[in-house]
């Protein structure tokens, strides 16, 4: 098949798939991502589910989207705007038109564009003729009807409903053509996916080919794109933040020799961590799906007392419910990893949308002086690393760690390079030997102030823990005023000393300059993209993205002091800014906040940074 069309080489491309919840757009998106990854591109993806399970067909509320950003270079976000939109119905078009670059390509399933569908999508005019699509390349493909025809022609005895479900392969076929990809990958994928239903393999492959051929045949698509592979070698996986978090915990369990226990209760967008670990019994993982969040964390505290690497996973409302029990882990000085996948608040809020507004809750949301280590992951793949570190710090310092991620990291995916577990730092739990006659429950390590871990079943170490204030060293209940003050100070100091065990804060860019952009957690992708764009233009701008929040790395003051201005960018009203203000009061912190349940756009960040750089 020789091509008549022009091939454009691109550094990066953003494709968005959108359709009804039942149209299989999540699957198509994943399939396209995987094939890009195998081809050698870097990538980042983000799904956009509706908040109803299946809102009425054809309505905007029912549209499900999936965005993927692939590149010949390193890719840090799923992209601001799409180069290509696949819109399976008018609702999808309406919802996402503003997310397409001017001049972008829009592939629509013309079979679904009729007056009835316009009405459901709340269009008053026909969008195909009202001029609203001027400036875009519109490909009107009869996807549904050609799919049906293809399958019916095969006489496999497949009913129309099932046949219709293969139409996402028609779309895939068109994209294979559009991106000059080898269709064999797709064929292999389908063979595996439907290995138990051979009829479906055949049907899907046929539809895939039909899509490819259709794209090649029609004249609407005169240009195709080529995004060449990156020049890098190694093993990679396309991984979501939630799976990476689960895996990081498994890795830490293996390295620490402590079996993994997760006590959890399902909640969007954290549920997949529980699901993933429930499917990992073959790695020796035990999961306990509790009756609620409180039982989730409490079962984990119990498991921690028995010497397990214990974790609990949740989102904001669940973290609120766990507050009291986190305090119990603080005062019993037991290790515990609390994963909080942030979503829009307050209360139930915007459960499917990302936000960074649980930071102050993580830091302060408990009665009494109740310090925890707080860390945050910043990309889907490094959820693995920070889950690992959370576990390491927790068992080595004998105190709970709150790991913050968010719905954007959790559901988004990117390529993770596979590194052998042995390359990760060792984890050394402070386990007491049987019959150690020196053992006292609250005897502490001189450096870290961590107590030791003795577990039921061990001989000669019987002791009790609990929520009442304990006497230092002996661990007996104590109402002594000075002991209480000592213990309050020790628990805080123990957390502060973790600063000696974490990496120094890095600065991306020059270590001095006009503007230091400060971010934390999941905004990394957008911030680094925006900052690097400005750096390329020669602006004196650098990025300081925090992963360690409590304690802060030791060199923060030194970094901050070398910049003329500091702007703290967050998806909340300024929580990290407020925290920094209280820790390093001498700086003036500018702030840039967005609380829309959406990630930062690179464009809006750049605009803000230009503006700050210009205000002298």
């Amino acid at each position, binding site marked *: 098949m020789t091509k008549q069309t022009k091939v454009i080489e691109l550094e990066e491309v953003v494709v968005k798939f959108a359709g009804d919840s039942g149209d299989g757009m999540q699957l198509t998106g994943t399939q396209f991502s995987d094939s890009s990854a*195998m081809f050698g591109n870097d990538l980042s993806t983000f799904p956009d589910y509706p908040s109803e399970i299946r809102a009425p067909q054809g309505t905007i509320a029912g549209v499900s989207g999936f965005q993927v950003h692939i590149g010949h270079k390193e890719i840090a976000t799923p992209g601001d705007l799409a180069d290509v939109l696949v819109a399976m119905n008018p609702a999808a078009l309406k919802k996402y038109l503003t997310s397409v670059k001017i001049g972008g390509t829009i592939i629509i399933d013309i079979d679904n564009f009729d007056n009835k569908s316009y009405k459901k999508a709340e269009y008053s005019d026909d969008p195909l003729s009202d001029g609203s699509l001027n400036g875009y390349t519109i490909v009107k493909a009869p996807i549904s009807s050609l799919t049906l025809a293809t399958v019916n022609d095969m006489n496999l005895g497949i009913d129309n409903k099932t046949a219709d479900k293969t139409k996402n392969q028609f779309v895939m076929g068109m994209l294979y053509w559009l991106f000059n990809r080898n269709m064999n990958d797709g064929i292999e994928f389908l063979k595996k996916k439907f290995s138990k239903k051979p009829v479906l393999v055949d049907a899907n492959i046929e539809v895939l080919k039909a899509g490819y051929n259709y794209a090649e045949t029609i004249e609407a698509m005169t240009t195709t794109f080529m995004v060449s592979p*990156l020049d*890098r070698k190694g*093993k*990679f*996986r*396309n991984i979501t933040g939630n799976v990476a978090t689960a*895996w990081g915990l*498994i890795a830490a369990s*293996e390295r620490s020799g402590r079996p993994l*226990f997760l*006590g959890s209760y399902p909640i969007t967008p954290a549920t997949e961590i529980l699901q993933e670990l429930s499917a*990992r*019994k*073959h*790695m020796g*993982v*035990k999961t*306990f799906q509790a*009756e*609620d969040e*409180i*039982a989730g964390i*409490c*079962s984990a*505290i*119990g*498991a*921690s*007392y*028995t*010497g*397990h690497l*214990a974790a609990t996973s949740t989102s904001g409302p669940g973290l609120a419910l766990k507050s009291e029990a986190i305090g*119990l882990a603080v005062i*019993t000085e037991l290790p515990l990893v609390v994963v909080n996948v942030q979503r829009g608040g307050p209360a139930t809020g915007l459960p499917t949308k990302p936000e960074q507004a649980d930071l102050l809750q993580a830091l302060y949301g408990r009665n009494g002086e109740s310090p925890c280590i707080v860390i945050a992951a910043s990309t889907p793949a490094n959820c693995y690393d920070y889950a690992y570190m959370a576990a390491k710090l927790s068992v080595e310092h004998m105190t709970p760690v709150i790991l913050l991620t968010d719905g954007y990291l959790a559901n988004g995916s990117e390529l993770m390079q*596979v590194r*052998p*577990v042995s390359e990760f730092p060792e984890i050394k739990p402070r386990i007491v030997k049987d*019959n150690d006659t020196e*053992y*006292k*429950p609250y005897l502490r390590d001189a450096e870290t102030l961590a107590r030791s871990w003795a*577990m*039921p*079943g*061990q*001989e*000669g170490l*019987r*002791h*009790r*823990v*609990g*929520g*009442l204030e304990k006497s230092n060293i*002996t*661990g*007996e*209940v104590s109402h002594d005023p000075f002991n209480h003050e000592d213990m309050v100070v020790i628990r805080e100091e123990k957390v502060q000393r973790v600063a000696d065990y974490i990496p120094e804060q890095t600065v991306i860019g020059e270590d001095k300059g006009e503007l230091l952009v400060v971010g934390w957690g999941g905004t990394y992708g957008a911030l680094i993209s925006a900052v690097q764009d400005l750096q390329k233009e020669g602006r004196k701008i650098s990025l300081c993205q925090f992963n360690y929040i409590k304690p802060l790395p030791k060199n923060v003051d030194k970094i901050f002091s070398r910049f003329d201005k500091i702007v703290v960018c967050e998806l909340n009203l300024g929580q990290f800014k407020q925290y920094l203000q209280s820790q390093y009061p001498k700086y003036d912190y500018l702030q840039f906040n967005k609380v829309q349940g959406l990630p930062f756009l690179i464009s809006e960040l750049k605009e803000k940074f230009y503006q700050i750089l210009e205000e002298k």
Partner: protein
Amino acid sequence: MENEVKVEGLSKKDFTVTNPVKWCAGCGGFSILSSVQAALPEVTEKKENVVFVSGIGCSSRFPYYINTYGFHSLHGRAMAIASGIKTANPKLDVWMVTGDGDSMAIGGNHFIHLIRRNININLLLFNNKIYGLTKGQYSPTTPKGSKTKTSPEGTIEDPFNPGELTLGAQGTFFARVLDTDPKMMKEVFLQAAKHKGTSIVEILQNCVIFNNQVHADITGKEVKDEHTIYLEHGKPMIFGNERDKGIMMGKNFKLEVVKLGENGITEKDLMIHDAYNPDPTIHFMLTRLARPEFPMALGVIRQFELEPYEILLEQQVKSAMAATKIKTMDDLLCSPGVFEI
């Protein structure tokens, strides 16, 4: 904390502490504690394997008063913490001590879920029908109409019956004992310990300070034998000072108290207690027997063996581990889905 040398053959002394027990003089807790300490040597092989978990309340101070591993946790949460302990390490002998408020007010949800999951934990429920530690407010088991610090005109809530609640939550073991009867307590604690699954033991406990004599109509020396019936599996339901009374299934499926020898009634007419019956209906009736019409049922009312949660989980883990080729994290990282560039 213990730093002593291990001796073979456990005795009650192995479980006693030297620190003072700080319950009020006359509190029902003392005799319960002593009965537990007497029972433990007979049901545990390694004292290091015993863990006592409690919530918050007077009763929940228990772990400080017994020489074992212990966790004095949060109000209402002991069930969840104990569930985590036993699920994580099924080898441990996990006991729980809780109060009527701790287990059935704030802890009610964990209580019914522990029971439903049937995790092998022995739960001792000190039912003094009052919040002791907070000084005398009504609890979910306080009899309707009782005047307490928060119900000056009398409560308007019907109480839970822990037995009914346990059975309603799919309970496999329920027993009821009196704090005044150490022999009965020890006997029943032994059975609870042997039961595989969640054992709920309701202990009618006297709180001398805030609810003194609330159980007097049951526990009083003079009335006890007339007002209670001690049930034993396989034995006819006989009670009374003279052991001359019994319980029979009457008309319309209602239980009746009958007098042996009267109207030609003999032992053979009496109900035989079948604690092992999988069907909980009769057990449900028995937990409900109430004064003045009936004696209160004591002893093991239900004991039905069903594989406990932690064992089923361990089986799933073991067979998953045996079946997989993915054994290490490196294997997992390189499992399908990986690609090399």
